[in-house]
């Protein structure tokens, strides 16, 4: 690491970072300010005031529990959608870690026919994003009667080449002698997996969990297609629905919902930050 004392460089570096933070933070602040004003205040002032208003409780209550607004429209409650998003993101993150760890374990530690072929098939799917295979996937999910269900929302997104590849690379760095020592100690393959590999992979798992939770939480296109009933809408869809198709957009409620939708992934990142960084940079075995 470069450790140098250069005041000018320090200044430039800080300036760049501060500008960067402003660019990223300003929209979030704007959303927060909007959520604290009334819909009428937002609609009537151009440009919008940047000073927080006093409508916080009302906006967030509407965003969470729904209800009638002065304009005559109805707001759908947000908390069931937050719950759907949360369950979906958790199932996707945990499911992805479980499946990809096991498949990486199989690929690295077992010799079976067509092992190389299997690995390359998984690897090739890396190049196909969800959007490309969305047609056939929809067909399958619909034939399996999984529309409007948690299974439909999560299962097609669980298989993950990226995570499998990541775990494979990690397992390859675990010395062979550990597996051999475990064999001599009498540990079978699954025992070795559970007692040795799993604890060693903790940091990688944490890093992946953060990434995959956010991936699951932010899903938009796939839920849009597989859910038609309102009680299975994730929060991202809810926001979209509150904006489009309404005659009079309750911007304060929309922004409150957006802020609420940001909290769980932000919490996951903040709480797991230590592990996350460790998982990405840790080389100590």
């Amino acid at each position, binding site marked *: 690491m470069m450790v140098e004392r250069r005041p000018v460089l320090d200044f430039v570096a800080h300036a760049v970072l501060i500008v960067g933070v402003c660019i990223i933070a300003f929209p979030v602040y704007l959303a927060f300010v909007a959520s604290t004003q009334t819909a009428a205040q937002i609609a009537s002032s151009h440009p919008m005031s940047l000073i927080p208003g006093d409508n916080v409780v009302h906006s967030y209550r509407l965003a969470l529990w729904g209800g009638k607004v002065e304009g005559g429209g109805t707001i759908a409650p947000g908390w069931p959608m937050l719950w759907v998003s949360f369950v979906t993101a958790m199932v996707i993150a945990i499911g992805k870690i479980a499946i990809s760890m096991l498949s990486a374990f199989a690929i690295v530690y077992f010799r079976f026919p067509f092992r190389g072929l299997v690995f390359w098939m998984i690897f090739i799917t890396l190049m196909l994003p969800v959007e490309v295979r969305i047609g056939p996937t929809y067909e399958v999910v619909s034939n399996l009667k999984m529309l409007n269900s948690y299974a439909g929302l999560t299962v097609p997104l669980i298989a993950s080449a990226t995570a499998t590849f990541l775990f494979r690379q990690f397992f390859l760095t675990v010395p062979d002698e550990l597996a051999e*020592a475990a064999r001599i100690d009498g540990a079978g393959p699954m025992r070795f997996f559970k007692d040795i590999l799993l604890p060693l992979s903790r940091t990688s798992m944490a890093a992946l969990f953060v990434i995959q939770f956010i991936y699951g939480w932010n899903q938009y296109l796939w839920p849009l297609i597989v859910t038609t009933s309102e009680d299975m809408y994730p929060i991202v869809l809810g926001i979209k629905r509150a904006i489009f198709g309404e005659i009079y957009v309750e911007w304060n409620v929309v922004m409150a919902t957006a802020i609420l939708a940001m909290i769980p992934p932000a919490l996951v990142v903040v709480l797991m930050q230590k592990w996350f960084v460790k998982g990405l940079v840790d080389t100590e075995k």
Partner: protein
Amino acid sequence: MASIEFNNVVKRYGSGKKTNQVIHGVTAEVKDGEFVVIVGPSGCGKSTLLRMVAGLEEISGGTISIGGRVVNELEPARRDIAMVFQNYALYPHMSVFDNMAYGLKIKKVPEAEIRARVDKAAQILELGSFLQRKPRELSGGQRQRVAMGRAIVRQPQVFLFDEPLSNLDAKLRAQTRLEIEKLHRDLGITSLFVTHDQVEAMTLAERMIVMNAGRMEQFGTPEEVYHRPQTTFVASFIGSPPMNLLQKAPGIPEGRILGVRPEHLRAVGTDGWRMRVETIEMLGAERLVYGWLGGDAEGQGGEWAILRMHETEAPPELGQTLLVAPLEDRVHWFDAATGLRAEA
């Protein structure tokens, strides 16, 4: 405790035309309670042989028996062995105690007995105060002892050591060597110890197997191996600096090789071979004198030879021609065609 029998053991990798045979029929018997060292240059198959005993490599041909029971098809855990690896292979996330106890837990040994066995091993190896530490908090020597502790608590019939000292520095290596020796004296468990270091081999072994290119060249006590090497390979591999193998010097019959160790070659006043001194190394207690033996006045056409002189002897000068002769009863004869030991 148990004996180990190798019966025409063969190891091949690959199949068909790509077959690569690395062990060519080793037959040997390690007696109950014996400490046997397998020594050889890298790539000679010594580790492979050990790993076949452990069950980490399949046996392509022949049989290996431990305590009279053929173990070819047995899982490593059921062979009643314990192994110490070169890089120790400690489980990094487990404490020293858990590292040692892991195998016993899998065997479902009662908790109290696990504790007793681990405590006893820790006491023998002076690891008592480290039991709750993680391997990364230990020094190389301590990790090494944990690896030995893990082997001891299993109370196996056979200990297998795969170059366990090669990651230690010289001083620690000498000390650990003594500890292993003491351990073997105290426990008396049959041990196989693989190393490429002949000092380790000579000092630790009750008997040693010298291997070269997948073949067992000699199996005997360190004394036998040093005093009666059975092949020219053993002659030049064991002993440092290596034995002089001479073919052209006067008095050596056609088709024979005369071997004489540097320490058994003497400068004499008259009646010896001419040796032109090229280099001298001072090692403290002794000097190594390198030069051309035989040949003309410049050493042309001679054979490279080494002579070991005690430091009290007057050193020769570079370029000087000495007269040297071997000690009569320390001369070895080999057949030039086969490399096997021959009698004069």
